[in-house]
Structures are given as C-alpha cells and as structure tokens.
C-alpha cells in the first residue's frame, strides 16, 4: 500500500529496514550510538514500523506498520511526513 499510488503489488516495493531507530544526527561522534543505529534491531514478533521504498512506482520511501507475526499490513505513510522517526538535522 502506497499513500501516493494506492494499493500495489508487493513486488513493486523494496524493504528498507527498521524505521523505529532514529538516525543519529550527523554531528554525533559517539561510535556506540552509530553502532546501535546501524547494527542492532528490536526485531519484534508483532507490530513493527519499517521502511519500504516504492521503487517501481513513485520512488517514495514509506513507513509501514506491519505485524511480523501475521504479515498483516497496517497504515503506511510517506517517510518524510513521519517526523517521529527522525532526529532534526541541524544545518
């Protein structure tokens, strides 16, 4: 399900990993923060928020809620509207 293009086949999308981990700000110099962001996963059995890109469609990155125990998809939103996941990027 793409919020822009509507219901689409899953082959049009590409998975992009856990969307609950906020990307550390660029200035973050703490290797542990980066290590945890890059390498560790909650990997829950149940509700999961994750990135998908509509690669064969509008090419937007989405945040999808899905139940990993049933694969039942929930709501999806454009990633750029999903401010919760992102630490502000000081310029």
């Amino acid at each position, binding site marked *: 399900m793409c919020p822009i293009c509507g219901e689409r*086949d*899953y*082959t049009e999308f*590409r*998975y992009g*990993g*856990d969307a609950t981990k906020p990307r550390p700000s660029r200035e973050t110099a703490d*290797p*542990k923060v980066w*290590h*945890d962001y*890059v*390498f*560790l*996963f*909650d*990997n*829950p*059995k149940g509700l*999961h928020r*994750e990135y*998908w890109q509509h690669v064969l469609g509008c090419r937007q990155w989405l945040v999808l809620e899905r139940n*990993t*125990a*049933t*694969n039942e998809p929930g709501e999806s939103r454009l990633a750029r509207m999903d401010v919760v996941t992102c630490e502000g990027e000081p310029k």
Partner: protein
Amino acid sequence: MRPRYSALSLLRHAVAETPWPRAWRVPDPKPTYDVVIIGGGGHGLATAYYLAAHHGIKDIAVVERAYIGSGNLGRNTTLVRSNYVLDGNTQFFEYSMKLWEGLSHELNFNVMLSQRGQIVLAHGPSQMDVLARKGNIMRLNGIDAELLDRGEVIKLLPYLDHSGEARFPICGGLFQQRAGTVRHDAVAWGYARAADSLGVDVIENCEVNSFVIDGDRVRGVNTTRGRISAGRTAIAVAGHSSHLAAMAGLRLPIESHLLQAFVSEPIKPFLDHVISFGAELFYISQSDKGGLVFGGHIDGFNSYTQRGQFPKVQTVAECAVALIPSISRLRLLRHWAGIQDMTPDGSPFICRTPLRDLYLNGGWCYQGFKATPAVGWCFAHTIANDDEHPLSRCYSLDRFARGRELDDYGVGNWTYKQ
C-alpha cells in the same frame, strides 16, 4: 543402554518382531539442571550431545517449544559444504564437514551424508575470479576444490542450459566433491537419541517464556511447563534469537527473515549433484526420496510467519527453468518457509553474552545446517569453559563494534540482502 542400530539388529527385530525401544525418552522437566539449552533444533541437540559426550556434563535439558526439528532444521535444503573464503569461516566449516564425515558412526544413526559434490556456477570472468580465489583458499586449507571450465561443466552437467538461449551463459564453476547433502530430520533424531542415551533430557512441547535473571546473571528459564533453574543457560533457537534475547533485555544484530524451500514430486535419479546458480541465488539437489529440493533468496523483509510470498515462488521457478530447462515439466509438490536470523555480515554468533551464564548461538542466516556439528562442538566448549572455542572466536557479538565483520560474500551491511 540403547540397543545399537545395525543391519543385524534390524534383521533380528524383523524376525522376532520385538518392538524397538523409544529413540529418546519423554521426560518431565526436573526443577533444575546444570545446563539448560533452549531450542531442540540441530544446534541445541548437538550442543547437548557434545557437552555430555566430551565435557562430562550430563545434567542437561534441551527444551523445545514444539517437536524437535520443528524449526529450520526440519525445513532446510540440507546442503553441506565447506567452500568459504574468509579466515575463520574456512576452518570452522571444514571442521564441521569433518564431523559430518564421522557422524553416522559417532551417533550410531544413519544421517545419510551424501558427498555427491557441489558445483557453484560462474557466468562471467569476474565471477570466475571470485570462485578461483575461493577455490585457492580451500586448497590452501586442505579442502578439496576444483575449478571447472565451461567444457568441464557441460560434461558433468549436460542438462543445464548451455545453449545460446541462456540469458546468463555458464562459463565455469567451482566443484567441491566432498560437499553434498544430509538427511535433515535424521540429524535431530540422531543427536537426540545419542544425547538421551547419555542422560540428557530432551523435553518437547515446552516453550521458554522468560528468563530467571538475578542481577547480571541468568539462573534459569520460565517455561510453559514451569520454572527450570539452570547453572548455565544457552540459547539456540535459530530464527527466534532476537525474541529470546529480548526476554533477557538484549538487542542483537539480527533481523528475522523468511527463507522458502521447495520440493518437487519424487522422480527417478535426475540430478546427481548439488548445483548452485551463479546469476541469482538458487540451489538445487535431489533428495534420496526423489524430490528435487531447491531454494533461493530470502523473501526480503522480516517476518515470523513461516510462510512465503508467491512472487518469490515464481522467481525461484524462473531460476530453475533458466538453469535446467527440462525441469519445466516436473512439478512443484510443496513449498514452505523457515525463519532465519539474518545478520549484517551474514555470519553467526557463538559466544558469551553481556549476561553471565547466558550463552548465545544464533544469527545463522543460510548456513546453519551445514554448521550443525561444529556448532555443537564449539558451543559446548563455550558453555563448559565459559570461553569461546578457538574455531568460533570470530563469531562474537562485539565484532561489529570492533570492525571485524565476516562478510564472506561481500554483500555489505544489509541484513535483507545478505
């Protein structure tokens, strides 16, 4: 003492019609054990066996939430091989291969190691160079390997698509004769029977729900059949490592992904080798029962459902036909999926954890079946000595923090692409 299995005992039982004894007992969990191993897959059972057989620890329970072998052990494509290129991987998987070679005898259970040979195909000169590097490393580590040119592949595997129609022409391959397949279920049963006869309690239908944690120390587990205290606790739950780790408050470098497997209807001998396509991830062999057993890449997103997506079924069928055009008319009988721990570098963990007396074996990605005996061997050592075994020292949890990834295929830091 269990009666030994042999042709003679088979005959004796057939004639006298005496009933066979149970292969392993059905014990109720005791309140406490020296070691509790969570997960009755190949890894858990092998670990229990080697602990009991080689480390003198006999007071062990293997707790399994369903039936033994119900996880990936029972649903994998059964390939065993030792063609790895990175220092650490090469030795570990070759050690496993050596253990396989003696396993039926060691367990007195025929696990049907069939060293029919595996050919990994190359479809271009740079792939040939990658295989050459791998083959050279294997030879330099005492592992058999042969580089085949196009003509040699045609001779060995004439039924592959060598025609001008092939989208990715085959230009050669790497052959490991000692590679092959093992009867997967027999591994569970063989280890269980052998471990059981050394006193290990194999407890089925017993799911671990939480750990008993005391400060920074794990003292046992709570299960659907009550609390079991343990001197040491070991996790060997394949696709569920994160789930178990979370119970102990740990986050792991693991995502759980679906890998599908496929079997055709049984036919007379059709493929005498294990063949791996080089253009995409696809591998195929024939089971002794006659079914063509094949598989491909993970579905590509994390899931615990144990059932796959149909587009992947098609992708895999496309690979099958691209590689072996005459497979077209043979029929897919059944397909299923397993839940795989995928790690950012495609390599596993056999190690201690930040909690004392809690040990982890997981993150096996595609390769845990072939690793089973060596996992048992090394993990048993780790548990018994509270220290990593030299062969598995590279499989630590902190390797990412240290920058010591072991990315044997050079895929890069994507769990879902590894």
